[in-house]
């Protein structure tokens, strides 16, 4: 009964106070919609490309046309030989790549001399740089293959023989789960979940110290049947309940609206969300028992949570980080959640593969719970005394 009374009290606190209500309702709605709208176009198509055609031949024009007709690129600028390559990206900020077709391109190829097409990408933005690198290399390799096949056909090869010689090894690439490199499906689900951890953590970080500051601690202590464990569990349960409402908003509303599909089991996904929320709530409560100043607890929550996305290995793999950053990454629940999240959301991996993530998240939960309990039991007499019970 004590558990239920604390649960009800905490739920009422969350829904009646401006701050937790904002964090659980307004912030998810605004930030999730905002992030999704940033990536609504998902794939960057028709990147403006400049061509410096020093040959002006039929063959060079064919290559130029191929670049223009590709989905990922569009020829927006024709450069002259006088223009300096190193100034183009500064003078024409919209241009993302330059393709230089050398002089005597057509004639030399006909004479059996090898020619090089040079591709300059503006890799100051690595996202665009990588897209163009892939796109333009595919175009030029296809073009080169076409030229070779044509030459071999002129030497009495059959089409199949020519193709086999041009492509002796054919790599059938299967880019699984997100073949079009759609950023809406890649980044947005991750950003929403890292914000979920932050949302839960922030509310929990002000839960116990907030009650102490407002003089409500003796009341909630009474409600728990004077049992600190029940008090903590009741609070964690209420915060987790609200966290799961936000999880339903993510999985049940945001994903379908924006066409983000889950490849794996929804049950496993909900379990992972539940454990992320549960462990974040426990760690937040722990911070709340350590720091009596609410604003200080929030600062700690901010410092701890803000870089979680960068440390999680989402964009840059953990194995590429120095050991101390790798170690810090392991101290954040989101890092462990993310692995399981990918395994379910994208890879549809069998349940046994997400067990390590589940175990890690449970360790965070129990660590938070035990430290909170010990600290609360130590502080207990003082808290009751100070609030005049």
């Amino acid at each position, binding site marked *: 009964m004590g558990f239920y009374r604390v649960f009800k009290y905490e739920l009422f606190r969350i829904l009646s106070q401006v*701050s937790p209500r904002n964090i659980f309702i307004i912030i998810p709605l605004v930030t999730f919609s905002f992030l999704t709208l940033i990536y609504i176009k998902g794939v960057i198509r028709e990147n403006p490309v400049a061509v410096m055609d020093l040959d002006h031949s039929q063959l060079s024009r064919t290559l130029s046309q191929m670049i223009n007709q590709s989905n990922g690129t569009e020829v927006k600028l024709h450069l002259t030989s006088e223009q300096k390559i190193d100034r183009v990206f500064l003078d024409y900020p919209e241009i993302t790549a330059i393709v230089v077709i050398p002089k005597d391109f057509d004639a030399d190829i006909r004479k059996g001399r090898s020619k090089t097409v040079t*591709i300059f990408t503006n890799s100051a933005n690595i996202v665009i740089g990588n897209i163009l690198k892939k796109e333009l290399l595919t175009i030029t*390799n296809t073009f080169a293959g076409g030229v070779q096949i044509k030459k071999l056909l002129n030497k009495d090869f059959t089409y199949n023989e020519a193709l086999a010689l041009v492509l002796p*090894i054919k790599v059938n690439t299967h880019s*699984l789960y997100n073949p079009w490199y759609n950023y809406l499906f890649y980044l947005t689900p991750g950003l929403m979940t890292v914000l979920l951890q932050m949302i839960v953590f922030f509310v929990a970080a002000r839960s116990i110290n907030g009650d102490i500051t407002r003089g409500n601690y003796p009341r909630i202590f009474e409600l728990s049947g004077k049992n600190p464990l029940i008090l903590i569990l009741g609070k964690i349960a209420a915060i987790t309940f609200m966290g799961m409402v936000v999880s339903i908003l993510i999985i049940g509303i945001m994903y379908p609206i924006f066409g983000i599909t889950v490849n794996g089991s929804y049950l496993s996904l909900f379990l992972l969300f539940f454990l992320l929320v549960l462990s974040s709530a426990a760690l937040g409560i722990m911070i709340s028992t350590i720091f009596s100043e609410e604003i200080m607890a929030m600062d700690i929550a901010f410092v701890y949570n803000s870089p979680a996305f960068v440390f999680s290995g989402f964009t840059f793999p953990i194995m*590429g*980080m120095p050991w101390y950053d790798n170690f810090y990454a392991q101290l954040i629940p989101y890092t462990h959640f993310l692995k399981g999240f990918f395994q379910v959301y994208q890879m549809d991996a069998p349940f046994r593969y997400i067990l390590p993530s589940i175990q890690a998240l449970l360790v965070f939960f129990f660590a938070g719970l035990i430290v909170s309990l010990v600290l609360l039991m130590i502080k207990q007499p003082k808290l009751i005394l100070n609030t005049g019970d």
Partner: protein
Amino acid sequence: MIKLKKIGQIFSDELKVIFNDHSILLTIIVAPMLYLFFLGSIYLNKEIEEVPVAVVDMDKTPVTRQLIRLVDASPKLKIVQSTGNMAEAKDLYYKMEADGILYFPKNFGKKLKRLKGADAGLYLNNSRFMPSNTINEGVQTALLTVGAGVRIKYFMSKGLIPKLAFNEALPVKSELKPMYNTTNNYGDFLLPGLFLLILQQTLLIGLGESIAAENEKYGGLKSGSGSGFLSWYIGKSGFYLLLFFAFAFFTIETGFRVFDLIPIRSTFAAWNLYVPFILATVNLAMIIGSYFKKQTLLMEILAFSSYPFFLVSGYSWPAGKMILPLQFLSNLIPISPMLDGIKRVFIMRGDFLDVSGLVLHLWVLFGVSLIWVIYRFYRIRAKEISLN
């Protein structure tokens, strides 16, 4: 009228506020340094090496073994398992201990030798783009090289000398030259942007908290009582300006070098961006802070603004590819022109003329936000007077 004594008094009062408020102190002094170190060090290695790949070799011929050795020789890839069993490779893949599977079917070697077109399969875990791209590039490069070698050998067998055989085998070559970030690494790309985001967010939260705390404690701007706007503005923002100009100096002169970023060409251009950026951010902090009656509430809201501010700035995802209202919003936030400018100065090594439009953009933001700050100052003061 500017009264130096009044400015000095407001300045020293603000110092007391900062050093007595652990939250502001942590936000504006400890957090930027901590973040600069931690985030900077993440990308210290800059490029990822040895991305794990599993190989399923159903052919087990010298040809496939040679190909596997070639793929493994790439510094960016590491063959973590070579097996004849797809289930074993899948196990590693599902554990995320291999980011891709390279598959050689039976008779691969035979088909390659007879030039019958040998098919290999490459299965990429595209849930994260970076490892997937690295494997794709590494495997394709290795197999295209082998393909070219097969063609050269074929033409030589037809009596061509090596040079002519090479020309016949590779009539058109492509050479890729990524500019400004030649190795396409994340560190050079992200670090300047992240550093700037840290500066903006910590300044917004720190100064915003100080103003919101005044609202909370005194129901108005106590620091502004009995002073004109300019004295209050200089006194209140003075320490933040000094501190954040010091951070700016550190990032321009030292910080970026510590993390081995390309040295900038024009320090003049960098300062021309930093000065209006910090001033506009100070104004934004004052405006936001003035609307909050609780320090904690401001902290909560701004804590959740870091990701949206960074992503809407257009630094990673081009602003031009966003919907129009977001493009408009992006232009109103100081970090957007700042990041564009920093990219041009720090990464693309441009000079002042290359960022003059962005400098103007930042000064316009500063001017408009200053008018707003003046409005808020007098509005709050009028409220205080009417209440008294």
